[in-house]
Structure formats: structure tokens, C-alpha cells
């Protein structure tokens, strides 16, 4: 009797991501003294959001996987896509394969909660820790918590409690330390009291330190210069995603040749035997992958919005003096020209990086994604331009684009995922963290788990 109740609680309720998320959101609403009816609506929406995310994600991973299989069949090259959210869901899938459906997401959500609480504790102890920023970007938090969980589980092969705890400690330290580093430079740009809490804080901080040595913000501040408006459409997330997908699929088509394109069209591939024309088929793939990403984003937004409401309320109540860490896009209105500049030079750097992979005959090839390309380079561009002018921003963003490619190749090699974050910190700092866990794992002779 007791066993079956425990089983119901742990496996059927707290082990099901769609219920777990609903419960967390419900508690968040009640803790903020909202009406019960509002709490129910929020919980239900969060629950639906988790499932919508799963729909988009499984379609994306399956469709994209077919493309990677064709690439591997034709060339022997292992491919991986760069995008944040699919990296989280691909990590979940890897854990689910070994531990059972729903385990990855469940552990990830627990890491998120413990990580958030630890972040609050670190800020509460700011006298000793010097950490002043609470990381509130829910959409990035859930992704990073999920990836951390997979890193720890993969290399240390521990059970749920130690995995969640270790992953939460590492993630909370990353959140707290790196967002605190950006409080001062963010204030100089915006004159407001917030900081960036995203996925490129470490590299943004490097840019803030290095940029003054590469140029002068006095004479080269791009925000004081004129720039063509025509490039603005590149900032439309959906159009830009479709464009990047179209270019990537075109290149893959050219590389894999007719035989593999036929395989892709067939029943074992994407099963689109009606799309006989190769160009129509190509466009279909690019648009389908974009549509999958849009569904995924919609699902994430549904539950993250509810989650952030609770996190923000709890943080403001418990730690009124803390600096709120928010999405990097909050900076964009303060430096719109740097955003476009960063995007252009980041893209240049990524193209150089991809050519480099071909030139050095890398066994891994990457398909760039809009989120790491745009948001990271735009943010790094803003910091670099503010403290070193546009020339410094151009150099730093080009370098960052290259690092994003080369660093991600290293990460993909160690993690064996079909997707990787691709963001600046996850191509530098986190590569080192993964290597560290890999080293510890091998030191104790722990076999790599999934």
C-alpha cells in the first residue's frame, strides 16, 4: 500500500515532466498569493507547453537526424546542428534511452529548481561570495540545467540525487559568477540596474576586457554612425532561421549527391515521395525544419512564461537587493547597430570556421543555427563596440564565430549528441567543464553512460 502510493508520487506524478512543471507553476502562483483559478490556468498552460515542446522537438530531432544520416552515408562525416533548445531535448532523449521515458526532463527540471535555489543562496551570502545577480532567464535556465544534468550523468554515471545536486552546483555557480561579472559593463551601456543572464556572459566579459586594447570607443562607436536599414530583416528570428536552414540544406544536398537525396525522399528517409523536384524537396526540408523549431519555441514559451513569473516573484520577495539577470535581448534596444554588426561578423567567423572544418578534414561537421549565431554575436558585439568601437567589435565577433564552430566540434566529440548549444560560453568555458567531468570520470574508471 505504502509502496504503491510512493510509486504513484515519484514515478507517476513527480516523474512526469508535464505534471511536475504544472505543480511547480501552481505552487509558484500560490506562493505569490494569486487566486487559485489563476494558478490552475497557469499550471495547465505550463503542462500543455511541455508537451508542445516535445512535439516540436521530436519532429525536429527525427527530421534533422535523417539529414545527418544521409550526410554520414555519403561522406562518413558525423553532423550536428547548433541550436539551444534541441540540445536540451536531445540530452533528455539520451537519458531516456537508458533510464526510461521522461527521466531526462524530470532530472533536468529538478536541476533547474535546485540550481535556482542555490543561486538565491549564493546571492543571500553575497558578503562572502561576491555574487549579486539572480539569473532569471527561464528559457536559458531550463536548457542549461538539462545539459548540465546530462554532462554529469554521462561521465559520472550517478543516480538521480547526486547527479541533480552536482549539476545544480555547477550551473548555479556559472549563473551567479558570470552574470555578476557583467553588472558593471551593462550599467555603462544601459544606465539601468540589470545584468545579462544568458549563454555568452563569459565571452562578453572577455570582449569587455579586450576591446579597449583593439580600438577606441571614443571615435569608432558604431551607434553614432549611419548604417543601412536594409539588413534589419535578418533580425526576424523565423525568417533568419529559415534562411540559415535553406543554405545549410542546400550545402548538404550538394555534398550528399543524388543517391542519398533519393534515400531521403524515400520511406526510410523523410517519406516525401510526392516531392519529385529536388528544389521543391529542398525547400520543403528547410521550411519543415523551421516549422519544427517554431513549434518547439512556442511550447518553451508557454511554460517558461509561467515559470519566470514565479521565479521573479520569489526572488523579489526573498532578495530585494539582488540584481536581476535577464535575457541578452534586453540590451538590444540600447545598441541596435551593434546588434547587426555583431550578427554580420559572427556569421563571417562561422563561415571561416566551417571552411576550416572542411579544410582540416574534420570528422565532424556542424550546421549553424540562428540562436547562437544571432544572440551571442549581437551581445558580444554590443560590449565590444561600447568599450572598443566597431573595429574591435568586428575583430572580436569574427573570432567568436570561429570559436563557436571549433569549440562546438570539441563539445560534440565529447558529448556525442546530434545537437549542440553552439553559444559562445558553451564553445569555451563549458567545453572545459565537460573535459573536466570527462577526466574525473575516466580517473575513477567510470564507463560513459549513453
Amino acid at each position, binding site marked *: 500500500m505504502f509502496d504503491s502510493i510512493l510509486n504513484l508520487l515519484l514515478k507517476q506524478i513527480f516523474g512526469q515532466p508535464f505534471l511536475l512543471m504544472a505543480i511547480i507553476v501552481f505552487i509558484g502562483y500560490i506562493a505569490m498569493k494569486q487566486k487559485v483559478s489563476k494558478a490552475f490556468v497557469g499550471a495547465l498552460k505550463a503542462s500543455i507547453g511541455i508537451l508542445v515542446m516535445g512535439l516540436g522537438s521530436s519532429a525536429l530531432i527525427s527530421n534533422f537526424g535523417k539529414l545527418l544520416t544521409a550526410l554520414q552515408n555519403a561522406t562518413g562525416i558525423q553532423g550536428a546542428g547548433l541550436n539551444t533548445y534541441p540540445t536540451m531535448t536531445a540530452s533528455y532523449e539520451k537519458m531516456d534511452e537508458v533510464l526510461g521515458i521522461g527521466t531526462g526532463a524530470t532530472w533536468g527540471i529538478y536541476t533547474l529548481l535546485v540550481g535556482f535555489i542555490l543561486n538565491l543562496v549564493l546571492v543571500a551570502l553575497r558578503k562572502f561570495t561576491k555574487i549579486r545577480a539572480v539569473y532569471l532567464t527561464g528559457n536559458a535556465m531550463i536548457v542549461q540545467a538539462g545539459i548540465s544534468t546530462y554532462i554529469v550523468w554521462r561521465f559520472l554515471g550517478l543516480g538521480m540525487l547526486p547527479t541533480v545536486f552536482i549539476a545544480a552546483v555547477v550551473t548555479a555557480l556559472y549563473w551567479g559568477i558570470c552574470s555578476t561579472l557583467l553588472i558593471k559593463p551593462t550599467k555603462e551601456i544601459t544606465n539601468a540596474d540589470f545584468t545579462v543572464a544568458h549563454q555568452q556572459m563569459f565571452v562578453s566579459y572577455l570582449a569587455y576586457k579586450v576591446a579597449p586594447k583593439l580600438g577606441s570607443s571614443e571615435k569608432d562607436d558604431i551607434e553614432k554612425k549611419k548604417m543601412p536599414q536594409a539588413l534589419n530583416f535578418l533580425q*526576424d*528570428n523565423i525568417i533568419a532561421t529559415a534562411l540559415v536552414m535553406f543554405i545549410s540544406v542546400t550545402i548538404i544536398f550538394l555534398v550528399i549527391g543524388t543517391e542519398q537525396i533519393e534515400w531521403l525522399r524515400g520511406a526510410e528517409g523523410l517519406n516525401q515521395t510526392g516531392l519529385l523536384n529536388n528544389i521543391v524537396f529542398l525547400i520543403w526540408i528547410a521550411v519543415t525544419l523551421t516549422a519544427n523549431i517554431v513549434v518547439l519555441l512556442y511550447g*518553451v*514559451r508557454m511554460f517558461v512564461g509561467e515559470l519566470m513569473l514565479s521565479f521573479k516573484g520569489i526572488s523579489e520577495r526573498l532578495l530585494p537587493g539582488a540584481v536581476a539577470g535577464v*535575457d541578452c*535581448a534586453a540590451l*538590444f534596444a540600447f545598441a541596435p547597430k551593434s546588434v547587426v554588426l555583431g550578427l554580420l561578423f559572427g556569421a563571417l567567423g562561422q563561415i571561416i570556421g566551417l571552411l576550416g572544418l572542411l579544410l582540416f578534414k574534420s570528422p565532424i561537421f556542424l550546421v549553424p543555427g540562428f540562436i547562437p549565431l544571432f544572440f551571442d554575436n549581437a551581445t558580444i558585439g554590443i560590449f565590444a563596440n561600447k568599450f572598443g568601437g566597431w573595429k574591435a567589435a568586428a575583430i572580436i565577433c569574427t573570432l567568436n564565430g570561429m570559436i563557436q564552430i571549433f569549440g562546438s566540434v570539441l563539445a560534440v566529440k565529447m558529448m556525442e549528441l546530434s545537437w549542440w548549444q553552439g553559444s559562445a560560453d558553451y564553445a569555451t568555458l563549458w567545453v572545459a567543464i565537460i573535459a573536466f567531468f570527462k577526466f574525473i570520470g575516466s580517473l575513477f574508471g567510470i564507463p560513459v553512460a549513453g
Partner: protein
Amino acid sequence: MINILCVCGNGMGTSTILKITVKNICDQNGIEANVESCSFGEALSYITTTDLVLTSPEWAGMLPPNDALIVETKNLIDKKEVAEALINALEAHFSQELSK
């Protein structure tokens, strides 16, 4: 009831924070509002049912053509700035919503 749409670049971080802020402002001022958030690329699918769009000058210029009232403020996560812009706009164009 007034329909408010919060717009940012990816429709994820900033617009979500903005949505939370706007909901709070509306609650505090007794304004009945339906608040949504999205990226400007998706704005087209919401905008026909929107009365008021809240966004920064950067994104405002790139919105699709629409009949909604566009309210711009540079710092989308500063509660004071947002409250000021929103209340001013409501007083000027939707005074019936405020007097309820």
C-alpha cells in the same frame, strides 16, 4: 478588456519579463487586460486582435502594418519606465479602460 501584446526579438526572454511587468501594472491599476508576448516575426498572427503593442523603438519600426496603438520604451525591463509609457498611452487612447 484591453488586449496588450509585448514584442521583442525572439519572443522569449525580454517580452516574457515585459509581460509579467505589464500584468502587474494592470493588476495594480485595476485594468482588465489580456497580455500576450511574442517575437516581432510572429507579431502578424496576433496583431489583428491586439489593441496596444508594447515594444522598444528598435522592434517597433519592423512590425507589420497594423491598426494597434504602438507604445515604445527603450528599457523594456524597467518597471517605472514601462508603467509610465503604458499608463500615459491608456489615458490618452483608452481612458474608458482606466475609469472602470
